[in-house]
């Protein structure tokens, strides 16, 4: 087993098998996944569609159950960790409530937790400022662009101060310019707040830019094929993408992905 005692997330020999519906064969979504994520580490999961990267995040957040193996999130099993609000989740879709203003949308997890109104709105305002949505707190989601909606979703996921932040292709539906900008801001956010992040993406460049480690996965069954250590110095900016070291890491990732997809 890899990983030391202070691992924030420990995934041990996890299998997820979805039973096939009506004659279809069972899907082996994850096969023997072993991974330990250190406190404050940013880890990206990358791989072809169907490699189970989203499934892995769903297992960590108790949205799916592992068929085999064990998972520890911030010292608890996923269910306990979820009930203790140790996990934040940002989905590809912002999934905001259309009938609520941005402020109360961001405060939603705190409202569910039972935090008094004044306190939770103050916290929501803090987060809105943090993600650069100041001045938009009174707007409704449909008045905001895709990038701004995703900022609100990030703020919402951070509202309960989760120990582990899970992000499932949060910028996948955005245009390149918005994506670059949000990458930079996420970089700053995680570097300042020292969050433990598991980040699913299709973009190897995005993964290398943001991560301490990039986990490359293969599909059917979903397995970890290799882990790339990203030793680029921090704090990073977008300019790091122009360095030779970055290019070498990105190329290695592309190469690994291609090898994986040939099998």
């Amino acid at each position, binding site marked *: 087993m890899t990983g030391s005692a202070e691992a924030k997330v420990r995934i041990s020999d996890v299998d997820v098998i979805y039973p096939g519906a009506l004659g279809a064969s069972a899907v082996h979504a994850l096969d023997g996944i072993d991974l330990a994520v250190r406190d404050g580490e940013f880890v990206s999961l990358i791989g072809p569609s169907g490699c189970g990267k989203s499934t892995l995040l769903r297992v960590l*957040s*108790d*949205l799916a159950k592992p068929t085999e193996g064990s998972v520890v999130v911030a010292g608890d099993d996923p269910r306990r960790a*979820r*009930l203790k*609000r140790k*996990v*934040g*989740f940002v*989905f590809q*879709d912002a*999934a905001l*409530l*259309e*009938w609520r203003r941005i402020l109360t949308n961001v405060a*939603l*997890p705190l*409202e*569910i*937790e039972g935090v008094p109104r004044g306190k939770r709105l103050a916290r929501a305002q803090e987060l809105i400022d*943090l*993600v*650069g*949505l*100041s*001045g*938009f707190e*009174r*707007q*409704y989601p*449909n*008045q*905001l*662009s895709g*990038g*701004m909606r995703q*900022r609100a979703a990030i703020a*919402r996921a951070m509202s*309960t101060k989760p120990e582990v932040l899970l992000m499932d292709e949060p910028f996948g539906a955005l245009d390149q*310019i*918005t994506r670059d*900008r*949000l990458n930079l*801001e996420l970089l*700053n*956010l995680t570097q300042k707040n020292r969050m433990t992040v598991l980040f699913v993406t299709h973009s190897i460049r995005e993964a290398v830019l943001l991560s301490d480690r990039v986990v490359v996965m293969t599909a059917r069954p979903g397995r970890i094929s290799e882990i790339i250590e990203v030793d680029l110095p921090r704090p990073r900016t977008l300019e790091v993408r122009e360095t030779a070291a970055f290019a070498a890491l990105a190329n290695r990732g592309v190469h690994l992905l291609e090898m994986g997809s040939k099998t």
Partner: protein
Amino acid sequence: MRSASGAKGQPAPHRGAGTRRMLTWAKEALLPPVAVFILVVGLWEWGTHLFEVPVYVVPPPSRIWESLLFDGTAIFTHAGITFFEAFAGFVIGSALGIILGTAFAYSRFLARGLMPYVIAANTIPVVAIAPIIIIWFGHGIISKIAVTAFLSFFPLALNMMKGLQSYDRTVMDVFHVSAASGWQKFVKMRLPTSLPYVFVGLKLNVTFSVIGAIIAEFVQADRGLGFMIMTAYRTLNMPRLWAAMLVSALIGILFFGIIALIERLAIPWHSSMRSNQKP
């Protein structure tokens, strides 16, 4: 983290933003139907005189108006009774529909077990079941309310169930990760999501409830618009019949307007409520 990316620059909808908006609204929304009304009534009056149309075929608007004035308060007393029956039946039927629709949304067993029978009940023509309901509930106003409630029940049961099931799966995941209780999911997510569907059902019920009340009065009544229509028909008092018909339509319009206003206040966020802001 200061600047926010690409705002659409769309202003927030202001409530009660002055008289200028009221004037544009009057010009754009009110003027066309009023103009059409004046034109149609004018042509109607002129046409019936020009072609000497017999009054029992199509009475001219002036004769209908006379009939309205002649009856004085009588017609509005009848209308008031019918409106009350329609409204009470609407409230009771809709409330029962909401309760059963919620039960269907939460219990697959109930939905599968009861739905075929509810659909079957809904296919019964109201004119066939009205006499039975009147036998059960007597000759008073209660039986009219019961017929109306029977008609109002189905649209809401179905729309409530659909509405409660139409939530976004990712939003449900957000609630799950936030450790929300079943009650919190219901109140903070599924119920608000269902509101647009509920209003579709309520608007259908407005029409159904007026129909239900009048049909029940056709079968047996000594007051109400349905009673008035039947007696005018038997005595071939056609202007009075037309007057009753128009008043019944007026009730429906008034009723519909109330529901549409409540909808506007209840779900301003829904896309169907923004259709007039952007083409």
